[in-house]
């Protein structure tokens, strides 16, 4: 039991660290959710050398040209969800309007022809299998 726990611990340690190591190795503007976050990272990680090259034009601002979908995207999402609810509303309205117009028509098609064809296809398949068998033996 102890062995298992230590094994898991080592496993977690190794992989956890390697992950962090990878992440720490090189950051791209994509890795941040906002420009401020990138800026913070840039300032706290040797801004003069800029190992991750977040400030390519060396003006002291990291990822200023990268478009972040952070706060903007939430706005967009809100907007789109708003639109969606609008659509829902209109569709509801339209069905209501349709309700006041008249009733739905009856379903007037049977599926028997399809079933008949399906049955014939199964028969054909079975016969084919049988014939093939005969030829082979």
């Amino acid at each position: 039991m102890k062995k298992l726990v230590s094994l898991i611990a080592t496993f977690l340690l190794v992989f956890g660290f390697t992950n962090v190591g990878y992440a720490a190795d090189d950051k791209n503007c994509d890795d941040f959710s906002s420009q401020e976050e990138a800026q913070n990272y840039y300032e706290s990680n040797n801004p003069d050398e800029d190992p991750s090259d977040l400030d390519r034009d060396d003006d002291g601002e990291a990822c200023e040209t990268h478009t972040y979908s952070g706060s903007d995207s939430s706005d967009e999402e809100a907007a789109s969800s708003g639109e969606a609810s609008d659509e829902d509303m209109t569709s509801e309205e339209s069905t209501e309007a349709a309700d006041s117009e008249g009733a739905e028509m009856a379903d007037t098609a049977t599926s028997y022809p399809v079933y008949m064809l399906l049955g014939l296809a199964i028969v054909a398949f079975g016969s084919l299998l049988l014939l093939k068998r005969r030829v082979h033996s």
Partner: protein
Amino acid sequence: MVAKILSILLIITGMIVTGWSGYEWWTQKSAATFQPEKAQAISRDWEETDYQETVNREVVHTSDVTPQMKAKTGEKIGELTIPQLGYLYPIYWGTDEQTLKQGVGMYNTAFTTLPNQAGHTALAGHRDTVFDGLDQLKKGDRLYLTLDDATYEYQIRKTWITDEHDRSVIVEKNSPTLTLTTCYPFDYLGSAPDRYIIQASLIQINEGSDSPS
């Protein structure tokens, strides 16, 4: 050996499926009886396709106190005769799946009425069983609806194709109207996306049993 058993099993299954659906289809199709002589005997001028005036709403109303349909869903209530096709169709109350398996169904909605209420009477039938061949009907052709010893004579005013969700067909009408709905296209496999509509106006009522039955 296994393959042989499997193939024989497949053949038997296929035959059962085909046989069963073929039988169901045939029995449902034969709900409509093909008797041209009887169908055409319903009226002397069934072939006349000239435009006839629509009967006034008031004329229909004087004939009866507002009748109520007492039939239960799925009960036979009358007969539809189309001399042009030579067919007689039994009419059942309601348009649910079980009812439409028996024959032609009459819509039971808030918008539709019985023929003797001078409103909008609507019938539905499967395009591949009872209402097979309905697309041969043209403007001017006559339809006869027999209900409670009265025969209502309708003349087709127009036919059109619409979407299955169109709710502008089964609506209230001020003039006595008969609408037939069935699925379209007629030779489409599976549940059809469109509806074929035939709309006719009431042109005459024959009360009593003077129509040969």
